[in-house]
């Protein structure tokens, strides 16, 4: 089973929820934790895994063989990202615009283009405890493309039927999130009960609807804002699975990298109960 923890708005508590869910269920349930928020991975700050393996994340990027190039301009014509342009007697390649689609290579009539891996970041894996495996992707600073790193992380650590995969998603509703939650059996949407939280929850909920993924809501910093989120959930039959109150003590502990379930052990059983509910929900026919 794959559970993805997502949100529209950033900073709502995705990592707080994902890490505490993992720590509540391990060691009884073997868990594979993936931090797919490659632009700002931070689950390791809470889980403190021992990193055992690391491989570079790369993207195939065109290199032009000047001797073989006939300056026909076909590569520039087929590139949808304007990563190749031909002006006068020169072919210019802009690697940071390249999405690695390979169209230039396929279409070059001279066979003058080959691809070389361009480093985008790193993938790392290790263990938090024997039954809790951890992996994350780290996009290099200044790199604009998160999706290839997320895809490689998911290929590198594919889900296993006997293992619960918990995925910490990037915020928002754009391509990196779509690639992260694709194939999930359940999406936990973490929000805060404010108009801003509701605005982005609505977008995230629409995304899960569009992708036909069952979803439930966790309200963090409960007690602030207004009743808008609760009303939205009631109107859309969206279950509110947990409410975590705004609490200065919790905030202080989380800021020091202490997981929620360590700060408040009563949440261990709450997360276990919640997981039972979503595992059951998953088995219901859609």
């Amino acid at each position, binding site marked *: 089973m794959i559970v993805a923890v997502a949100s529209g708005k950033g900073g709502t508590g995705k990592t707080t929820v994902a890490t505490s869910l993992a720590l509540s269920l391990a060691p009884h349930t073997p868990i594979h934790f993936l931090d797919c928020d490659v632009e700002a991975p931070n689950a390791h700050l809470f889980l403190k895994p021992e990193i055992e393996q690391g491989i570079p994340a790369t993207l195939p990027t065109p290199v032009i063989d000047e001797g073989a190039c006939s300056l026909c301009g076909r590569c520039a014509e087929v590139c949808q990202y304007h990563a190749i342009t031909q002006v006068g007697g020169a072919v*210019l390649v802009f690697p940071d615009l390249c999405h690695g689609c390979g169209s230039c290579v396929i279409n070059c009539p001279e066979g003058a283009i080959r691809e070389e891996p361009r480093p985008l970041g790193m993938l790392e894996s290790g263990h938090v405890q024997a039954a809790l495996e951890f992996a994350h992707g780290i996009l290099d600073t200044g790199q604009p493309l998160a999706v290839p790193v997320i895809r490689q992380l998911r290929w590198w650590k594919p889900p296993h039927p006997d293992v619960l995969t918990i995925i910490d998603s990037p915020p928002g509703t754009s391509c990196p999130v779509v690639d992260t939650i694709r194939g999930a059996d359940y999406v936990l949407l973490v929000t805060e009960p404010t108009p801003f939280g509701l605005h982005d929850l609505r977008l995230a909920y629409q995304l899960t609807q569009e992708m036909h993924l069952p979803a439930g809501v966790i309200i963090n910093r409960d007690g602030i804002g207004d009743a808008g989120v609760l009303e939205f959930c009631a109107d859309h039959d969206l279950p509110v699975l947990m409410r975590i109150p705004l609490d200065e003590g919790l905030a202080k502990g989380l800021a020091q990298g202490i997981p929620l379930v360590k700060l408040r052990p009563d949440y261990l059983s709450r997360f276990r109960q919640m997981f039972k509910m979503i595992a059951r929900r998953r088995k219901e026919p859609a």
Partner: protein
Amino acid sequence: MNVAISITTISPDAPPDMHFGRAPAFLLVDTDTGQRQVAANPATGAPGGAGVQAAEFVIQKGTEAVISGSFGPKAYDVLAAAGISMYRASAETVDDLLRRYQEGKLERVEGAASATDKGRSQR
């Protein structure tokens, strides 16, 4: 000489735009005949690679010189590779710019606005 000036709206009376790649339009001027034409910039709302696309566009239009407030690194590389001269838009109106250009008083742009990721010339 064919000159392109980045402008803020798709109108012949529009003031100069301070950015090349995402300018809404270009005023294309034939300084020999005085003929003027407004062309919408296809790259103005591009998700990425606007500089490259805008440069390709003005090159296609037969431009020999470009006047704009600033040029990004990729636009600069493409225009430079095509042998197009770039000038800094240091006037409030396109008429003033054209007059200064013809008097040879516009500053030549040597180098991009910010060279964060220069295109890799492969030829």
